[in-house]
């Protein structure tokens, strides 16, 4: 590269240069690689924001979780007191815990929506199979975050929900009992289990999630977005990732943080009574996302129990992972994929019905 030539010389003798077509900025060189990245123009379509919000939520969860750890001790009893301290003695502690709580709920809702939209658009099909599979893997990781995170406050709900979940896992033939022992570090839900859940929740699972996100983004960048269903060619002229997409993500982050902070300010996230392993009257209610699985467990009893705890959830996972290879339809349009669309719609309907049944069973029928 030949050295740039000065275009003017200022009064104090310093020179100005024009390098290529743009003038030089102090940080141009280190950020050159970032500015070279381009993405399809469709990335900035008004209705493509769910992925960006999901990213904002993951960042928010990492941030709030890391700061919640400042006032947390993973010791039965003390854990509850430390969360109580966060809520009532640390300024903004209640907001921080609430943000963490609402962020994971919203993350799960939007992740399911993200999956449904990708499905309807046929965007999982060749060549984007691995974008889809890495996304399904991320979705599969979220319940592990919830299972390990729920126990941490050491309140009644977290403790007894863990008991229910562990006994469901233990009922899986052959491997179940061993899985629970490995997960808890023994048969008890005590200090060893709490420490394990804590380390899994704040170290191993986040690392795994970051890795899967990197894979997901790599494939999104490599294969781009699928064609739009309305047949219109999406704006496919390349746009600069920095600053266009980065700015968009920052706006989404600011909006998401503000909304969730307001939400938690008006409806703080609850902390129940301290966990009491001797209490035999407490009945944990399943959370919204697990209602359909709970209902499956309730339907299949006795020797059929394995259907509800292992076989059906396992088949569902296989279906999601294998979808890009199972779908042999001629095109991406829903009209060209009738079999797959009908199968998925039936599946979704069954899950919704089971969830509603579970909801009415645990939370009562709606008033007549």
């Amino acid at each position, binding site marked *: 590269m030949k050295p740039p030539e000065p275009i003017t010389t200022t009064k104090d003798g310093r020179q100005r*240069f024009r390098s290529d077509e*743009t003038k*030089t900025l102090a940080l141009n060189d280190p950020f050159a690689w970032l500015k070279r990245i381009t993405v399809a123009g469709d990335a900035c379509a008004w209705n493509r924001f769910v992925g960006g919000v999901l990213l904002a939520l993951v960042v928010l969860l990492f941030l709030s979780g890391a700061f919640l750890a400042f006032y947390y001790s993973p010791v039965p009893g003390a854990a509850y007191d430390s969360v109580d301290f966060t809520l009532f003695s*640390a300024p903004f502690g209640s907001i921080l815990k609430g943000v963490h709580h609402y962020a994971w709920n919203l993350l799960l809702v939007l992740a399911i929506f993200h999956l449904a939209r990708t499905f309807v658009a046929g965007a999982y099909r060749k060549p984007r199979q691995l974008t889809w599979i890495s996304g399904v893997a991320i979705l599969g990781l979220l319940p592990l975050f919830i299972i390990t995170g729920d126990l941490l406050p050491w309140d009644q709900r977290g403790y007894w929900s863990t008991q229910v979940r562990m006994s469901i896992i233990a009922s899986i033939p052959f491997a179940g009992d061993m899985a629970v022992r490995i997960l808890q570090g023994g048969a008890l839900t005590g200090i060893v289990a709490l420490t394990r859940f804590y380390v899994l929740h704040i170290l191993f699972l986040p690392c795994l999630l970051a890795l899967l996100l990197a894979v997901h983004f790599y494939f999104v960048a490599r294969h781009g977005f699928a064609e739009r269903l309305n047949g219109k060619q999406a704006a496919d002229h390349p746009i600069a990732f920095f*600053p266009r997409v980065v700015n968009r993500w920052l706006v989404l982050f*600011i909006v998401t943080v503000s909304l969730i902070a307001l939400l938690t300010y008006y409806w703080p996230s609850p902390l129940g009574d301290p966990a009491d392993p001797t209490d035999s009257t407490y009945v944990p209610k399943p959370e919204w996302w697990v209602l359909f699985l709970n209902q499956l467990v309730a339907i299949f009893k006795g020797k059929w129990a394995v259907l509800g705890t292992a076989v059906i959830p396992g088949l569902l996972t296989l279906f999601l992972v294998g979808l890009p290879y199972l779908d042999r339809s001629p095109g991406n349009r829903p009209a060209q994929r009738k079999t797959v669309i009908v199968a998925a719609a039936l599946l979704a309907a069954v899950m919704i019905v089971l969830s509603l049944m579970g909801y009415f069973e645990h939370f009562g029928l709606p008033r007549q």
Partner: protein
Amino acid sequence: MRNKDVPSPKKPSEESRVNRNRREFITTAVLAGGAALLTGIPLGIYVVAPAMGKSIEKWIDFGSPDALPDDGFEMLSYEFLLKDGWQILPQRGFVWARKMPENKFRVFSSTCTHLACNVIWQPETGTFECPCHSGRFDSDGRPVAGPPARPLKELTYKVEADTFKVRMTV
């Protein structure tokens, strides 16, 4: 002499930091700064505020003052419960106390002013000796040998209803 034809491309002059992308850069900087402030200010307060709590003051009861010797220091051990964040734990330690003429007393903290080991009163030499680095303090708490440079901390006491009380601050 500076060669005007071959300038260093990595160090553009102040005036040349003008870029047609400046507006884009400022937009990103404002958004990123907004996001950082929005999350950073509450998080900063959240981390710093509880660390700024004022120190706790406690009067420790050591029984009758008559039991204290007037020819040397006696070790008075204490234990009290202290709330540390969300946990109440016993704090243990000892102070050195003696009787002085005219119904007065002297109480020294046992913490060496060098590196915070516990000093021990030696009746034979009439000094406090620190086992860690052989620092010595005389019976007035002044450093006389070894690394310590500051005198032992003298603690405030009071006698109420024939009980000897010492003020501890944590």
